[in-house]
């Protein structure tokens, strides 16, 4: 094992770098909020050319969805990050000409992603059957709360709704408090979006071999149900697991404890070997090993562990975990995550020099690749910012034709709301905006 970590570090830093994996893949998305947009974000970070179509004026309504209402240089940073490396076209789907434009873009794409209400795209004339008729190789992805067919399919959804409908909502909370809490930060959007990307990439892989496109139906609720092991537990025992506070019912002892220096540490003992490792220092009775998964025994072990933890500081506990080999980690808050030196060394957080937003620190790619690292090239742009660039490049329209579309109200730009518009310092003499030069 000598030098293993150095070998990997060197491989990641200095190993052979190759062309972007998804270069040449054209994606068109009509998406809003998180579920849809996060799909294009990841594909674009690995080289796909992603065109996002929004409504002129307000655009994706999530442009206004800032954390605690805070904008940064007229921009919503969360939106900016979830829409990295994309091209922004604004076409008003209520206008017939605009629908033609959207249709023409979609027929030239490899992948089309939408997360509107189930069936709405059919009414807009850009449903799967309509696009497939002119582009049989299309990989068409519909993202929704409950799927494209079935009695619930037309019910509106958001992350929080899917968590409620799937029953996942009822699993997080204290046993003795009549409340439950959602999984934060839109888990019911982000998990399904990653699974949608998996499906898209599998479809691209298959298309490479056979030339065939296909339709993908992915829902928030089913993505959550896929990992709700309680379904199986219930079918065997007839009981619901419900809320278990900080106890992971698959680990014993397990919980979040306060150290002598006032920090929180999570300890979760998954295997027998780990139990033996921690038993030797905390002083667990060996006879508990056998039935350690009954709730009473978990609580008994937790009580003992809690007393042990409160006499030690965080550093001491982590040292013991390292030496003995059992799972333990500090419970971090937002700021500790942001400042974490490990994340900076790893590249989980990177500094980007953006033409609009200046120097900002944003999350890096979701995984580290030795030869084809993901890149954050630019953050989101204002509504309709790339109209000219994309309509020229994809549809060969002339400046005059584009101006006509603007006059007819088919395409448009941002309004003056923050989140949709450029920063006040923006210089209108902008070649990218005029469609004469690409980003980057």
């Amino acid at each position, binding site marked *: 094992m000598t030098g293993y970590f150095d070998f990997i570090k060197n491989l990641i830093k200095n190993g052979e770098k190759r062309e972007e994996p998804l270069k040449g893949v054209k994606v068109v998305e009509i998406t809003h909020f998180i579920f849809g947009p996060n799909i294009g974000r990841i594909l674009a970070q690995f080289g796909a050319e992603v065109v996002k179509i929004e409504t002129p004026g307000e655009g994706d309504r999530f442009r206004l969805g800032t954390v605690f209402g805070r904008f940064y240089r007229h921009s919503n940073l969360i939106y900016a990050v979830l829409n990295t490396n994309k091209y922004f076209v604004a076409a008003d789907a209520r206008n017939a000409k605009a629908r033609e434009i959207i249709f023409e873009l979609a027929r030239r794409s490899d992948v089309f992603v939408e997360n509107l209400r189930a069936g709405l795209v059919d009414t807009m004339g850009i449903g799967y059957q309509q696009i497939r008729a002119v582009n049989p190789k299309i990989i068409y992805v519909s993202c929704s709360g409950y799927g494209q067919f079935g009695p619930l399919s037309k019910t509106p959804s958001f992350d929080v709704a899917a968590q409620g409908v799937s029953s996942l909502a009822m699993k997080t909370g204290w046993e003795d408090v009549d409340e439950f809490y959602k999984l934060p930060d839109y888990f019911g959007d982000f998990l399904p979006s990653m699974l949608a990307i998996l*499906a898209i990439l599998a479809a691209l892989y298959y298309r490479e071999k056979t030339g065939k496109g296909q339709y993908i139906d992915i829902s928030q609720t089913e993505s959550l149900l*896929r990992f709700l*092991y309680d379904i199986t537990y219930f079918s065997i025992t007839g009981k619901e697991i419900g809320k278990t506070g900080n106890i992971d019912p698959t680990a014993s002892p397990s919980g979040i404890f306060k150290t002598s220096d006032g920090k929180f540490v999570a300890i*979760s003992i998954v295997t*027998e070997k780990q139990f033996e490792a921690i038993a030797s220092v905390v002083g667990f009775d060996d006879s508990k090993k056998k039935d350690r998964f009954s709730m009473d025994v978990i609580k008994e072990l937790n009580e003992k562990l809690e007393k042990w933890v409160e006499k030690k500081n965080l550093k001491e506990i982590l040292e013991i975990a390292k030496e003995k080999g059992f799972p333990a980690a500090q419970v971090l808050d937002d700021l500790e995550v942001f400042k974490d030196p490990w994340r900076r060394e790893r590249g989980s957080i990177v500094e980007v020099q953006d033409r609009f937003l200046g120097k900002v620190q944003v999350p890096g790619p979701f995984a580290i690749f030795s030869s084809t690292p993901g890149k954050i090239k630019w953050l989101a742009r204002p509504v309709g910012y790339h109209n000219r660039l994309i309509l020229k490049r994809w549809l060969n329209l002339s400046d005059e034709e584009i101006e006509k579309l603007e006059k007819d109200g088919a395409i448009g730009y941002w309004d003056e709301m923050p989140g949709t518009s450029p920063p006040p310092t923006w210089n209108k003499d902008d070649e990218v905006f005029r469609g004469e030069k690409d980003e980057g």
Partner: protein
Amino acid sequence: MRDEYLLKLFSEENKPFALDELIVAEISGENFAGAIASSLLAELGAKVYRIEFEDDAKKISPFGVQIDGIGIPYFIETRNKEILKFDEKAKEIVQKADVVIDAMQPGFLDSIGIGYRQISEKNPRVIYAAISPYGHFTSKAEEFRNVPDSDLTAQAYNGYPTLIGNPFLTGKHSYPLRAGIWAAWIMAGANAAVAIMIALIERGKSRKGQFIDVATHDAIATITAFPYIVGFLFGKPRGRFGTIDYILYPFGYHKTKDGYVVIATPTDADFRALLKILGRWDLEPDWKFTLDRITDDVERIKILDDELNKTIQNFKTYDLIKRARKTRKIPILGKILGRFLGEPVIVKINTLQEVLKDEHWWIRKSFIKVKIDGKNVLIPNVAFKMSETPPRVLKVLKGQL
């Protein structure tokens, strides 16, 4: 009509898999992020060999409940896989596989001669995905290499539990709180599967593999981006916000006369419609705009939350849902003003038993019945549908599908 068309389109009969012929070797011990990554690929048709040194993972289960000696997560996440004990034959599979998933202690496989540096020498096309708490490089990864992974510790280091819980509770109920599923392991597994597919598509062009590193302790935060953005913008953490959201209000859970509902009003129009439904137009002047309802001050938003809760508790769940549905059905006006008319999202929060009774999921085949010793055991089916290459569960360790 649409339903019928789609049911036919997504039928699974006589269709190929997207990942036919792809060989995956998964060595993940008790780290279920690795098992999840490979079961997602196995559902898409990859030939997955799960190679084991010990059978610790088999025993892991909620409250120790077993299916014929097998824990529930193991039963679910070994779908379509072949299980092998580590031996010379298994070693050979690892050396020749298209994809290797290594969720063991970082450096362990290297120490026994089947790490990336040894395999890639003979098989440069290998895509090697490492999954571990802190990754396979950086000083922290090396320092903590002996600390095994768990979902709870990974949630903790992602900053997740500090966001969960009611800010007005005290004592132990003010501690950070665990998300009730394996949130970090699931996200890390999905991330690894996506990363592998990206590398696989690239391999089609370059004919070369590569090394991929996924850290469970960062799997949620890097995807959601929120902790980073909050740290950058505010220089302070958010803390617990109960059922209130950081961006929108209302966007959470509320108690009704006979149960619980989710209420989400992503726009001001939706909020106005909600006030009409509840008969609380008196609240409109003070809380008109999204910016009035910013949740940065929990004491302040609690005033509105308490008012709404007082009213919502007087409604029966289905009455509220019916009223919300009505706002979406104003035919003529809807056509003209469609997007300006509010439509609050109001749905019922289900218990698991209610989910299992809902015909919607049975029509969609969201669950699978497995017959074991004459008894039906339910497992979750695949997460998504594909028309040409439907992902499927073909076999499980015990019982008949």
